[in-house]
Each structure stands twice: as C-alpha cells, then as structure tokens.
C-alpha cells in the first residue's frame, strides 16, 4: 500500500530542492554558525579563564542552539509568507482550488514542506552541534528534546507566515505581517523563558511557567517541571501542547481564509481567539506562585492586541442586528469587533481571578502573597479601563488613516507609545521596580499592587474618551 501523497507537498518539495539553491542555503546556514560560534569560542579562549570543560560544553551547547533558533526564526516566516500570496499573484490559486483539493490540504502541504526543509537544515548542521559531545556536560536526550522543541517553534513561525500569506494582498505585505507577528510572539514569549535561561547556568531548578514555549528556554527547560493547579507538568510537554495548538490554529485560519469566505474567516478567528484567550487565562490563574507582573502585563497587552485586531477593519455593519451575543460571535465588522474585544477581555480577566481563587481553596495555600483581593480588583478595573479607552483609539485610527493595517498600527503604536513613556516617567518617580519584569510591567501598566493610582485610570479614560469624540466629530 502506498501512502497517498499530498500533491501540494510533493510539488513544493520537488521545486524547493531543485537546482543548487537549497544546497547553497544549507551551506550558508552551516557556515554562518561555524563563523559566529568559532568567533565566540576564540574570544572566550583569548580571555583564558579556567572553567571546567563540562561548563564550557553547556555554554557552547546553549550558544549553538540559540544560533539555530535565531536562524530558524528569521528564515521560517520568510519562507512561508510567500507561499499562498505567490499562488494568488501568479493566478494559480483558483486553478488549484478547482481541482477539489481542500484549502486545508493546500495549507498543510505547504507548511509541512517547509517544516521538512527546516528539519533538513537542522540535521545538516548537526556536525556543528556535535562538538558538545567532545566537551561533555549535556546529555544527548536533552539535545534531542531541545531540537524537537525548536521544530515546534519553527512550525509556529511557519504557520504565522502562511496565515499572513493567506491574509495579505501582496508579497510585500505578507512578509511584513509575518515578520511583525513572529517577532511580537517571540518577544512576548521570551519573557517566560528567562528562568530557563538562568537554569542553564545554575543547578537551581525554578518553578516557572511556559518556560519552553519560546525555544529560547529549550536548552535549560528540558528538565524543568511546571506546576498547574498543583500538578507537575514537564515544561517541554507544555511547550509542545501550546505550540502545536498555535500551529493548528494559524493553519486553520489560513485555510479558512483561502476558502474565500471572508465572514467565515472573521467569525472563526473570533471564536478561536476567544477560546485560546480564556484557556490561557485559566492556565495563568491556575499557575502557582505567579508573579503579579505577569498579570499586569496581561492587563496591558491583552486589551491592546484584542482591540487592535478586532476593533479595526470594515466599518460597514455587516453583522445581523440582534442580541449582543449574536453581534459578538456572528458579526465581523469593526464595531462589533470592539464589543468582542471588551467581552473577551472581561471574561478572560474573570477566569484568571476565578482560577486563582479556586486554586487557593483547592490547595489551601496562601503562598500567593501578591494576589491580594485589592491588587486583583485594581487590575481588573485597569484592564477594563484600558480596553474601553482603546476602543476610542481604534475608532480614531479608522477615521484618521486609510486602510485596515494602518488603523491597526495606529491603535497599537498610538496607544502603547504614550503609555510606555508615561510608565517610564512614573517608574522613575516611584523608583520601586524590584526586578526587570517589574520594571517592564510598571512602564506599561502602573504598579497597582503598590500604589492604587486612580489618577491613571482617569488619565486613561479621558484620553480614550477624547479619541472617541474626535473620531465622531462631524462625521
């Protein structure tokens, strides 16, 4: 019996590996590693420190791995972001769709061809990594696991690329969108990887969360356990589950978009995001010893991304008139999108705090010192104020700048920049940041746990209302 091949997969592999191009890329990939790592090793050797060989091996392994991660993160979105938009620009997309191939098959075939290509690059560069075996200090099982996690990461960035490719109208826009989204995801998840990076250099095994969802934490986090609702879960498993779900979600979104049903896509996107958001909030709430700063960041970033994504776009009221529930989950215009963002954030926030409370009752621990009722309440309020104000910014963005993406950018930057600057000023005034994370949190949302800053709510609300009024001015 032969396994039925996905024709798209076959086609992509066949054309990608044709000629010298792919092999030139492999050569460049390995060469880049050799040069950079060689340079680092040479530099550290010049300092002539007396460090045990095993420790050098560990550092070397982490360095090689991060190098690979960097290259994979840069290469993958670039490779995938062109795939579908190219078919559209070449006018071959209709022809493929008419063969009866399902959009899912097309997207999956393309994505897997890229995944195979990335694995091919990684395997091709194994000899460089193998130097670790000479120095010792890192068990092969950890190396293998880290590579598996890296492949998962590559799939996420690849699926982001392919989703951008399905959404965007032109090659350039697709690339831009893919890289911005991939970088945003990378930066946000890298915060979670910080304890794992520390873990590489010390024997201490922290309890932390989502340490391996960014492959940055993979070399350290392969031996980590994370505790959710009092249950120990290996970090790599959490990473695997989250990253593969993200991949599936982005892939499905691409397929939905390809099927040409724009409202279906918009509605599916809303429901997926809603489900993910609430699940993520539940996990955050159920996580033990969670820093309040995570939640603070959540209260700023979540409304921002939600409103920017759903609150800009088509201004035509395409949703059928009906109950709020209907508008939120069956609509696909900007106005109901803002309603959706507000609704989703509120539910997410309630779930976080519900899960936290449930966890406390369940485990009968009172370890969660920062989670005072007051701090939690303040965060809930600040998140909601933020969301409400942001809807005003989104409305203004749609009024001022033409196009969906411009409005999205306006909402993101137009809000984050002044808030960030304001945050930095306050952080300096209060000079109360105890950790790097705390500093970031303070510069974005004020540290409500320490100083209930109602004046900030007022500033936020007034700014949001101002935007709203200008947006409505002489319509």
């Amino acid at each position, binding site marked *: 019996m*032969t396994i039925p*091949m996905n*024709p*798209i997969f*076959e*086609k992509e592999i*066949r*054309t990608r590996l*044709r000629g010298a191009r792919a092999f030139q890329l492999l050569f460049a990939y390995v060469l880049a590693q050799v040069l950079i790592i060689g340079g680092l090793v040479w530099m550290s050797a010049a300092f002539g420190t007396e460090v045990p060989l095993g420790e050098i091996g560990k550092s070397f392994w982490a360095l090689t791995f991060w190098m690979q991660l960097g290259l994979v993160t840069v290469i993958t979105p670039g490779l995938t972001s062109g795939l579908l938009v190219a078919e559209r620009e*070449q*006018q*071959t997309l*209709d*022809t*493929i769709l*008419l*063969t*009866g*191939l399902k959009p899912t098959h097309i997207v999956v075939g393309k994505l897997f061809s890229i995944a195979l290509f990335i694995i091919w690059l990684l395997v091709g560069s194994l000899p460089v990594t193998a130097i670790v075996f000479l120095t010792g200090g890192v068990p092969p099982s950890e190396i293998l696991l880290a590579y598996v996690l890296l492949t998962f990461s590559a799939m996420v960035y690849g699926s982001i690329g392919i989703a951008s490719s399905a959404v965007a109208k032109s090659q350039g826009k697709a690339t831009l969108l893919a890289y911005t989204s991939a970088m945003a995801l990378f930066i946000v998840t890298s915060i979670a990887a910080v304890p794992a990076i520390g873990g590489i250099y010390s024997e201490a095994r922290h309890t932390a969360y989502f340490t391996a969802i960014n492959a940055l934490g993979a070399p350290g986090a392969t031996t980590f356990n994370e505790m959710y609702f009092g249950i120990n879960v290996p970090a790599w498993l959490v990473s695997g589950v989250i990253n593969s779900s993200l991949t599936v979600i982005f892939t499905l979104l691409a397929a939905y978009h390809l099927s040409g049903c724009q409202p279906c896509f918009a509605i599916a996107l809303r429901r997926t995001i809603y489900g993910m958001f609430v699940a993520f909030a539940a996990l955050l709430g159920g996580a033990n010893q969670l820093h309040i700063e995570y939640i603070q960041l959540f209260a700023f970033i979540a409304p921002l991304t939600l409103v920017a994504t759903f609150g800009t776009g088509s201004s035509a009221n395409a949703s059928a008139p009906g109950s709020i529930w209907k508008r939120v989950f069956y609509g696909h215009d900007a106005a109901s999108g803002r309603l959706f963002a507000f609704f989703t954030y509120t539910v997410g926030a309630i779930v976080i705090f519900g899960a936290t409370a449930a966890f406390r009752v369940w485990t009968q621990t009172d370890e969660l010192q920062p989670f005072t009722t007051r701090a939690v309440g303040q965060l809930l309020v600040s998140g909601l104020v933020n969301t409400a104000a942001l809807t005003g910014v989104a409305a203004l963005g749609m009024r001022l700048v033409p196009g969906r993406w411009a409005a999205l950018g306006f909402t993101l930057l137009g809000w984050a920049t002044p808030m960030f600057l304001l945050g930095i000023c306050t952080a300096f005034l209060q000079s109360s940041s105890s950790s790097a994370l705390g500093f970031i949190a303070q510069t974005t949302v004020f540290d409500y746990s320490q100083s209930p800053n109602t004046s900030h709510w007022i500033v936020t609300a007034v700014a949001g209302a101002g935007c709203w009024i200008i947006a409505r001015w002489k319509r």
Partner: protein
Amino acid sequence: MNEPLRIDLQNITKRYDKLTAVDNLSLALGPGEIFGFIGPNGAGKTTTIKILATLLEPTTGVAMVDGINVVENPNAVRARIGYMPDTFGVYDEFKVWEYLDFFAAAYKVPKSDRPGLIDLVLDLTNLSNKKDAYVEGLSRGMKQRLCLARTMVHNPKVLLLDEPASGLDPRARIEIRDLLKELRNLGKTIIVSSHILPELADFCTSVGIIEKGKLLVSGPIDSLIGDNIGVRVLELKVPAEDKATASKVLGPLKGVRNVAERGEFLDIQFDGGIDAQSDLLLALINAKVRIICFGEVQTDLEAVFMNLTRGLVA
C-alpha cells in the same frame, strides 16, 4: 436512458452592488456541443463561465452542470469540468510532465494511470516533444496549450474555456482551433468565449451573443445569420451625380430599412425577399439611375454582432 443536459443555466442573474454583470441568462447544452460565447469585453462572459466553474455564486437562478447544481455541490461539479481562466499562471519551475502530473494528482487520478494520461493529453495538444522541457521556456502559445492540456487531465465532460486564444499569433490560434475541433469529436461539451468572432464561427455548433449581461440571441450560426436577423445589406455603386436620385428612389421602397453612404457605395439595409430585391433594381433602372455595381454583401457573424450590439457598446 436520458442523459442530463451537460450545461443548464436557468435565469441566471449576477449582481454586484449596482452593476448587473449577468442578467437573466438561460442556456442549455448537450453532449458534443460547442457553444461560442461572443461579446465585447465586460459583457458578462467571464462572470457566466465563473459561475459554471463554481468560482462565483449567482445572485438568483439555477446553474447545473451534468445535472448537478453548482451552488449545492460544487465539489462534484469541479470533478466534471475543466476550466481555463482568461488570465492564468503556470508553475515556471516545473517540467511540462510534472506540471500535468501535479494536477492529475490533485484531481486524484491514480498514480498508475497518470503517465498514460499525460502522454495522451500532450499528444492531443501537440506538446509531446516538450514533455521534459521546463514550463518557463515555453512560448506563450505553448503555455496556452499546456493550460488546455491541464484542463483535460481528469477527463472532464465539460470544458469551460475563457478566451483560450487571446494574445496568440495567428498560427497558434489556428492550432488552438484545430484542437477544439478534435475535442468536439471526443464528445465533450465546450463553452468557449471570445471577443473575436471569426475565431468561433468555424467550429462552434452554436453561438450566443452577450451584451451588458443579456444574452441577445443564441442558436446555430446559420440560423442566426439567416432567419433570426433577416437583415441583409445590399451594396450599390452608382456615379456620384446619381447618388441623390438613387437614395430618393430607394427610400420608400418595400423592405428597405435604411440607406447609407459608404465611400463610393450606397449600403442598403434590406429585409425583403429575393423578388423584392429584383424590384428594387428595376425601380432604380426605371428612374434612370446608372448602375455600376449591385450585389449582396456576404453577411457574417461579425455583421450580425455589430447589428445586434449597435449602440449598446460604449
């Protein structure tokens, strides 16, 4: 057993906001028929074909291919049609046989059947000697033929060809025409659109003229030219000084619709019979008009088209 109509369009209308692209169009075609869709650019040919190809949904009306509704069961329809869009792309980095193999695989043709099938369609489209060439290196006419070969790779009953010969040099055009004739002999139902008339006149079993979304006339070519229209053009050459007299004499005669000057000639639009035509000549001679030349202009599809679409084409 009664085979269902291969193509059955019933009162199809497609509307975009304000524009009506196709207006209440009906059409029925059986096996072995080649229907030529004629109309100026923007008349609604492509829209109609796209509706049949399941790429667009009609606003109202029912479209059936081989007895299957295109809106209700697009996947079953897709397996039965070969669609060649008016503008299309090919995968340059493929070899010709790989290109066809890819589409055959996409249409779920079993792997063992593909090589024979590919040879067959390549032979049909006269591309056998290019089997191992890269698509990139093919001429435009060859790419067009390759695209045609692609539409046949799953042996569809219906072919929808949107401007298959546009942008080709005369030789490549004749090749496409010969190919279509051959396909007709294979019993396929073909819809082929064009804005160039003589291209179709030769091999279509019937034609339809579409303008502003409306199917003005349709039917076998001969009947279109003869009965349906009925207007013939007679040309008359007389010395310049007799032109005025001739016009005056002709004007009130039976069957004369219009008399127009065209250089040295007078064009008479005439819908009377043969007897009336001789009467016309007799009347001219009686009026002492000196006739240099008198005869019927051969009416072709083009004239019919111009006649029907007069004033409508912007």
